[in-house]
């Protein structure tokens, strides 16, 4: 059996994702246990340079014009061959817009077991164990990593991206892509995020609202509080999907990652899709009526009161404090 751990590197427009480095770190932990090597699989078009700082023992680089953009179809067909030929102990994908299009399809197609939402891989008496984060971050599920080849979809949080960067370029091996001229999935154009609105990734004080805001009328309370604090309002997915805030204000997986001096999370439960983007903030303060909300595990200070009651009172007290200063 091949003890190697493969990592499918995620990149777009010349940029390797942070999660790819997290996966390389996870792969190293797993490879130490299996006695195998870490192999980074990089599918790209003129993207060989991206291999340079990947902390892998070997990079398998497959060049094809179809990899200039992300096409699920192109990735599925190419990786199918790679996995069939090499049967590594595990293949790591992101639990993301890219990995999500590929890993579960391959699991079904190749009859290989799949573990998703995986946060850490660890060795226990020679066996590999997975720990996955489910139920909006409220539960962890642990078990043996199934064999002989497990496909794994990783979420951030278990390893630091720094651990996946290498100082020296790894060995590079070239592979060949199958015929990819009749793709069923092709990118036609990119729509850039709207500019002109505030950039929440650069703001120092963020008043972030979640489902607890309840309806659009209440957004004004958050606006007033943000104004008093000299900050801006951001939101989690449910608020954006309801159309209560512009998509530019989305903090989370599909939105922006933030590093605020103060991140005031109001009525946000703290699902992993949101919290993965706020960890670099200096101070997180969370207000939520649910004592079991995972956001309290990340926050420095918390309170279990109703945000609709708190916001106007807090805005007023902030105004008063500023008046006295």
């Amino acid at each position, binding site marked *: 059996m091949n003890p190697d751990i493969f990592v499918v590197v995620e990149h777009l427009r010349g940029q390797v994702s942070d999660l790819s480095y997290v996966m390389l770190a996870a792969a190293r932990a797993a490879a130490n246990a299996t006695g195998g090597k870490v192999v980074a699989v990089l599918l790209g078009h003129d993207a060989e340079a991206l291999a340079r700082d990947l902390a892998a023992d070997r990079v398998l680089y497959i060049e094809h014009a179809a990899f200039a953009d992300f096409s699920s179809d192109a990735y599925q067909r190419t990786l199918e061959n790679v996995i069939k030929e090499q049967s590594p102990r595990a293949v790591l994908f992101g639990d993301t817009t890219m990995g999500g299009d590929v890993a579960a399809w391959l699991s079904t197609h190749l009859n290989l077991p*799949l573990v998703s939402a995986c946060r850490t891989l660890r060795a226990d008496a020679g066996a590999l164990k997975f720990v996955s984060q489910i139920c909006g971050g409220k539960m962890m599920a642990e078990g043996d990593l199934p064999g002989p080849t497990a496909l794994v979809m990783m979420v951030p949080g278990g390893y630091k991206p720094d651990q996946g960067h290498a100082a020296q370029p790894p060995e590079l091996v070239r592979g060949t892509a199958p015929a990819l001229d009749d793709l069923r999935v092709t990118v036609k154009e990119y729509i850039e995020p709207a500019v002109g609105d505030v950039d929440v990734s650069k703001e120092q004080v963020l008043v972030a609202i979640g489902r607890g805001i309840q309806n659009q009328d209440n957004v004004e309370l958050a606006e007033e509080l943000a104004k008093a604090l000299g900050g801006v309002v951001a939101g989690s997915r449910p608020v954006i999907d309801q159309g209560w805030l512009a998509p530019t204000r989305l903090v989370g997986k599909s939105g922006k990652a933030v590093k605020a001096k103060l991140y005031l999370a109001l009525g946000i439960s703290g699902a992993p899709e949101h919290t993965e983007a706020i960890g670099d903030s200096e101070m997180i303060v969370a207000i939520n009526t649910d004592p079991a909300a995972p956001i309290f595990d990340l926050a420095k200070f918390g309170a279990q009161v109703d945000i609709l009651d708190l916001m106007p009172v807090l805005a007023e007290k902030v105004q008063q404090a500023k008046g006295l200063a």
Partner: protein
Amino acid sequence: MNLIVPIKMVPDLVEELVIDASGAQLDPEALRLKLNELDEHAIEQAILLKEKGAGQVTIVAPDLPDIDDALFTAAAKGADRLIKLTGNWGNGVNNHALARVMANFIKTLRPELILTGVQAHNDLDGALGPQLAEHLGMAYVGYISGVTLANGHVRARKEFPGGLIAETQVQLPAVLGIQAAEKPPRYVPISKVRATIKTAQIETFPAAELETAGAPLVVRLFQPEAGARATMLEGDVDAVATRLVEIFKEHGVL
């Protein structure tokens, strides 16, 4: 065009989650199920396409507790056919098993476009959509937040991090994993759902035998260790606000 929306029920996270005596699963007695939120978006997207003249919307669901409510609500919003697959579901099964059974049934409907939630919060073996696509020999694209039908294909807006969207062309037939419908899921008053119960019909079909291979076995379920849990501020709203102002000052925000 036949638009199919496979949906499933998931634990309602508003309720307290209780781990059962085995330590490896949620206590079914203490569990309340609700429709997967992203499936609600998939239903909305399908109905929006129908309203633009796309065709008929069929909802397919495993026969889990409270599924009738979810199905009738979909009908009240505009779904045409409601289908319930009966079988030994308990409080849910893994997606590998669900995909096999669903694919087996859905292929009899001659599907052209399948819309389903891109994920569910309790997925532990990948999402349903890409597995359905493989079984049915269809293309799959997920994280979609907008769909336009064209001749023989769809244009789907695929989300990437940082707010970037890739306008992606997908050949039909296809499965799309929906992250968000173009518009927020519409609200239907309970009175309209009640009226629908009197007129709409749920068709039931027996599901094939469940085959769960492909998913990992959970040995232990646990709540995340509260590492550096937040210092909780006690007292009423006034006391909390006063303390927060002090904290903001100490931190140099005020």
